[in-house]
């Protein structure tokens, strides 16, 4: 499936054109900075630099944009780890274990793990893209409403009650999230819950809401702390410990590969994308783990799962875009726009006729993964100095930045207002022991599940039996129940064993 003459000319193209290289580092840096700013999403970072790419040649322009893509994909994890605010919606699950690690003084390890998992994720996803672009695209195109609804339900089942003191409170929180996620016009054109406010026509602005929820719940919890990391001796910034984080990634190859596989596949499906991949990979890793209770308390596996999946989504969505000309999400839509601005129409024909250019883009992304390791390492090293910043300076700065980010993403006061409303909600909920993370999960998955379920219903014309014509969806649901059943049985056994042990101990 690899066209070797085209490959050769791609190598020649990259070797002979320094202009294809000079934009990699600036692109990664721009991506890192924008990705790390709460409120600026991956696609927004790319939209901001799109006009600049007009003045470059086609290949350098695309390489520049994919560098921003790669950089922003990782950049979101930095504030997620350090201050519990995901820089982009694709880094939500990174906060679940990354931030607890940081609070324990393992910020360097967490960021190192995130960085290595991201780089390896990007690399593997592009290798898969390189070898399997066509078959992957063909499979993805077949993923219809039934399969997508099944994927969404899987995510909600895995994460619906995450982090709560009780399952009931978790489900309540997830339900609030789903409710907020379905505000606005649904796919059939009906308005729900917009209260006559035109800003809500497209639903609750997700990113400001998410930042508000997570920031408020955590920042108020820090009210008596002086620093994010309590113990002074842990407030170090050390390259060696960042590398230790990298070693952790290599020690968990299964988690890494599972996350990458989920990322490539889920990221490739148009309309799902990296934020859902990030959640599902985390949930699946937690479910498969021998010790699910350690998640949410600073288990590096959580960070690895989350970050490998959101980064490998890039390769997946590039496959859909290159082979089909269909943008899987905002970022690839911008890449297609950049194609169009250079008088190139993306899609199957472009792939057939310009295989060398496609290979050059892929090869450049291999290189980007390695460059990201260096640039990202340096960036993380500098960024983690904020653990030395007293919270009385850090918290107000974070609040101001988040508010500005919320304004930037919405282009109006609706962003900051959403942030404020959800900050209050987040504070109230965390005060009374409701898991805020479950609201975010509901917010991200609710709309997807509702939309796809509605389409599935329309497609079936109201006939529930129609679902059996979609074996893949049924398969996903069956696998979900089987795996859930297995973990419940394992939990019960362990609980029984613990009880037996306790009885033995008390008998002594």
């Amino acid at each position, binding site marked *: 499936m690899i066209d070797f003459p085209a490959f050769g000319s791609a190598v020649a193209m990259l070797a002979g054109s320094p202009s294809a290289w000079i934009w990699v580092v600036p692109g990664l840096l721009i991506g890192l900075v924008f990705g790390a700013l709460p409120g600026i999403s991956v696609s927004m970072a790319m939209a901001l630099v799109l*006009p600049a790419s007009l003045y470059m040649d086609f290949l350098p322009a695309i390489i520049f944009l994919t560098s921003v893509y790669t950089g922003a994909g990782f950049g979101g994890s930095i504030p997620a780890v350090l201050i519990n605010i995901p820089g982009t919606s694709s880094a939500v699950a990174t906060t679940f274990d990354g931030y607890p690690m940081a609070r324990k003084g393992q910020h360097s390890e967490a960021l190192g793990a995130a960085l290595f998992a991201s780089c390896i994720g990007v690399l593997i996803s592009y290798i898969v893209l390189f070898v399997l672009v066509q078959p992957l695209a063909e499979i993805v195109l077949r993923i219809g409403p039934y399969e997508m609804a099944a994927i969404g339900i899987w995510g909600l089942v895995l994460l619906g009650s995450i982090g709560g003191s009780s399952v009931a409170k978790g489900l309540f929180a997830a339900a609030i999230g789903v409710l907020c996620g379905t505000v606005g016009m649904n*796919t059939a054109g009906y*308005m729900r819950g917009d209260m006559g406010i035109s800003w809500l026509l497209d639903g609750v602005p997700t990113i400001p809401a998410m930042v508000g929820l997570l920031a408020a719940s955590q920042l108020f919890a820090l009210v008596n702390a002086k620093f994010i990391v309590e113990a002074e001796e842990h407030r170090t910034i050390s390259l060696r410990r960042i590398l230790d984080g990298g070693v952790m990634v290599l020690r968990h190859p299964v988690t890494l590969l599972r996350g990458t596989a989920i990322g490539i596949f889920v990221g490739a499906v148009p309309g799902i994308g990296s934020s859902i991949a990030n959640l599902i990979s985390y949930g699946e890793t937690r479910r498969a783990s021998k010790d699910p209770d350690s998640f949410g308390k600073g288990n590096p596996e959580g960070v690895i799962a989350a970050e490998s999946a959101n980064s490998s989504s890039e390769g997946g969505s590039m496959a859909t875009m290159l082979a089909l000309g269909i*943008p899987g999400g905002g970022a690839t839509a911008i890449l297609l*726009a950049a194609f*169009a601005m250079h008088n190139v129409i993306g899609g*199957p024909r472009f792939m057939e006729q310009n295989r060398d250019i496609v290979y050059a883009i892929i090869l450049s992304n291999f290189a980007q993964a390695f460059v990201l390791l260096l640039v990202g390492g340096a960036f993380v090293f500098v960024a983690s100095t904020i653990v030395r910043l007293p919270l009385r300076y850090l918290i107000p700065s974070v609040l101001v930045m988040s508010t500005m980010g919320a304004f930037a993403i919405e282009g109006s006061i609706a962003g900051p207002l959403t942030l404020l409303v959800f900050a209050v909600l987040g504070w109230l909920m965390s005060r009374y022991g409701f898991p805020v993370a479950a609201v975010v999960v509901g917010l991200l998955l609710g709309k997807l599940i509702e939309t796809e379920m509605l389409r599935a219903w*329309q497609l079936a*014309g109201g006939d529930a039996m129609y679902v059996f014509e979609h074996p893949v969806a049924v398969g996903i649901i069956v696998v979900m129940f089987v795996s859930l059943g297995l973990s419940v049985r394992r939990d019960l056994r362990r609980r029984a064993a613990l009880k037996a042990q306790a009885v033995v101990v008390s008998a002594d």
Partner: protein
Amino acid sequence: MTKHIEAISRRQALMLAAGAGAALAAPGIARAQSFPERPVTLLVPFATGGYNDRLARAMAPFLQKQLGQPVTVMNRPGGGTVLGNTFYMQQPDDGYMMMVHSAGPYIPLSILTRNARYKAEDFHMINLPSRDLTLAASATSKGINSIDEVVTRLKADPRSLSIGVQPASADLINMALFMQAHGIDRSKVRVVTYDGGGPARTATAGGHVDVGFVGGEGFLPIKDRIKPLLMFSDEKSTDYPDVPLLTDHARAAGFQPQSVDGSQRGFVVLKRFVEAQPERYRILLQAVERATKDPECVSTLANQQLATTWYGPEASNRAYLASAALMAQYADLLKQA
């Protein structure tokens, strides 16, 4: 409707020829008026990367040349253009902002389905060079060969085929009128709704639905994967030259063809501004016209598959208002997907 536009554009051309003398004197007037004396903004009520955004960005340098001031593009997406339109209504009438908009169908649709507070007549079209037409298509893997096959199967059993369409769209109106003309009960057909042209096309090409009714232009990159069945137009499309037209299909089937344009895209200002600042409006009109006719602009935009036809305000407004009226007439069709 196309025929209207053609006829008027010819008359328009004559008028323009008559006014050529005045046009030649225009730069002097522009200088005397000292408008514009600061950058002009093109407001796009959609996100970066769509057709309107690309049109605005491609036209900007050529407009800049005519206006002598930098021309920048601003995106204000959301609410099916309600947010962008509302924002535009709030701007002063100083001529420093023009919209690049899919005025038809978005402005009338936002009024009919999203209770927007402006009226279709509040907007004034300078030129709407681009039209996108509804295309009925099916995935090649489905083995559906003609629109007649679709009609026969749906007539026999309305539940036999699923249809993908965007709710509150010109495509939905066209689909509904088509079903009505053939006496097919739309409430029995399995209609699947997609919130955007992209998802609707993916569903069509991926075979999630049997037939999709959606703007034809977006299908071009994946042309090989679909079988185009019917174009809702009365004139051959350059993109799909072999696809049957609604007019011919209707003649054969014995009904009156009726359809609305999928999108009418181009330069839009407020009627309020045209009335309050006729001089400035004239300067903008002239700049858009000259930029549109600039041979360099024509070739650059053609390469990006962007339209540069000059219809002029009269024809553009007529086409826009006609499609707005048709939509208002079929508003009840829009409310039930």
